């Protein structure tokens, strides 16, 4: 729901009469216009996937990476303004290494997410700074298991089973909600600014309506190997051929199979995922 906050949207230090900070909402719009970024938490790890819209045919494939390793055990996928994203990744890497040198252990993912979130939030507090125009999905595997967090330009950070940001997030999330079992007790919130949507989703989930008919897969039973295929399918599915040009699929994982290290998905698995995704698309088109 977009609205213009005439007069109250000139500075991030101004509230509107109905209690909104428009600059932050505009920053979120920058994220919404970027290529889709998805993260899912499987039984044994995390899978991150990015729909990298190719700006020019002269770009080298594999360049302009959108997923970065921030520490041995964690990685971050960025959506929105690329330069802003670089800044956040650099800061995250620095926080992670600093924690390791002081406390002698890899930074717990929860702690890392909190630090990223407070850094992003910091830039919404002063008039001489502008908010970050990017959202990040942070996935890591620490001694409490695999965890997935999403940080938005407002500085909120929640923990998720599955998260999506960017152009195709609504379509992807519908698929991803269907992929997950909502287990009571975990924080599951999409679009936290939109309480009405949240309540609707939650009530539908608890009624079992949503889950009932179209719940395809269960993330809690899925391994990362299977998760990679599913993420590829979703990204290919939400890509809009008409509006956008070509895209390149970039994926990473951190799971038991990768020895709890964050790394690019191995090439053969990536090719397998792409093939499966294309095949699924043909099937859908054929119907």
């Amino acid at each position, binding site marked *: 729901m977009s609205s213009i906050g005439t007069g109250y949207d000139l500075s991030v230090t101004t509230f509107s009469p109905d209690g909104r900070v428009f600059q932050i909402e505009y920053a979120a719009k920058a994220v919404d216009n970027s290529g889709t970024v998805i993260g899912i938490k499987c039984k044994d790890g995390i899978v991150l996937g990015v729909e990298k819209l190719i700006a020019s045919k002269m770009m080298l494939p594999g360049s302009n990476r959108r997923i970065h390793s921030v520490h041995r055990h964690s990685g971050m996928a960025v959506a929105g303004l690329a330069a802003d994203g670089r800044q956040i990744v650099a800061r995250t890497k620095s926080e992670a290494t600093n924690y390791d040198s*002081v406390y*002698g252990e890899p930074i717990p993912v929860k702690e890392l997410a909190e630090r990223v979130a407070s850094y992003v939030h910091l830039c919404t507090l002063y008039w001489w700074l502008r908010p970050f125009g990017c959202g990040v999905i942070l996935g890591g595997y620490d001694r409490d298991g695999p965890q997935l967090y999403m940080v938005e330009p407002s500085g909120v950070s929640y923990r998720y089973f599955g998260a999506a940001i960017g152009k195709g997030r609504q379509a992807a999330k519908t698929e991803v909600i269907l992929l997950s079992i909502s287990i009571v007790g975990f924080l599951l919130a999409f679009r936290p600014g939109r309480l009405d949507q949240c309540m609707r989703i939650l009530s539908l989930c608890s009624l079992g309506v949503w889950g009932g008919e179209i719940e395809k897969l269960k993330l809690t039973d899925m391994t990362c190997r299977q998760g990679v295929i599913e993420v590829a399918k979703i990204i290919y599915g939400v890509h809009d051929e008409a509006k956008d040009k070509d895209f390149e699929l970039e994926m990473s994982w951190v799971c038991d199979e990768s020895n709890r290290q964050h790394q690019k998905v191995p090439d053969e698995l990536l090719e397998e995922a792409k093939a499966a995704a294309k095949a699924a698309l043909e099937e859908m088109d054929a119907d």
Partner: protein
Amino acid sequence: MDQKMDFNAPHSMGTTIIGVTYNGGVVLGADSRTSTGVYVANRASDKITQLTDNVYVCRSGSAADSQVVSDYVRYFLHQHTIQLGQPATVKVAANLVRLLSYNNKNFLETGLIVGGWDKYEGGQIYGVPLGGTIVQQPFAIGEMEDEILKNHCSIEHCFPGSGSSYLYGFFDQAWKEGMTKDEAEDLVKKAVSLAIARDGASGGVVRTVIINSEGVTRNFYPGDQLPLWHEELEPQNSLLDILGAPEPMNI
């Protein structure tokens, strides 16, 4: 030669400290003597200090230095626990101790043994000796400390090695993997009392702290509850008894 005693000389803990892991937790043990030169400043000190609910540290060397290091680490760990939302791990506590020890090695003179229990790795012992090394061990014996007592006339330099150096041979023989809690505590008690018997810089009572998943237990063993060693034993079949007690001399 001279009986001059400087009560303002740095208090040193010529010490015996021990940390031992067992099947399910750790046992920390220490003697209780704090000396200033040859004067025993405190004969019942508590050298096992709490850092968090589940991590304790045995202090040796300069009493002041070890107290200050413990205080700083307790402060940092407290904040860390709040931030983390769960108890800190033993490894993190030990790492904080060694960072302070290493980065201030020119100013500090303290050897520490960090021991505790956490839900990820169970019972662990980390030795942090003088220079700021950190080494995880199944058992650790008190670090050497030597106090340079500048103001004391007769002794320039206490001999290096506290009571703990007398224990290496004993541990090589007596320690085994996978002991029960009682076996481990017995071992610690025996070891500390052996060191007290042989080391002039150790003495007093034996204090032990047992840390496991259920919590922390503090024990206190005064002299009469400790085993006697060798020359401390009552004479048996001594010639002196046979000949009868000599008449006291009357002048």
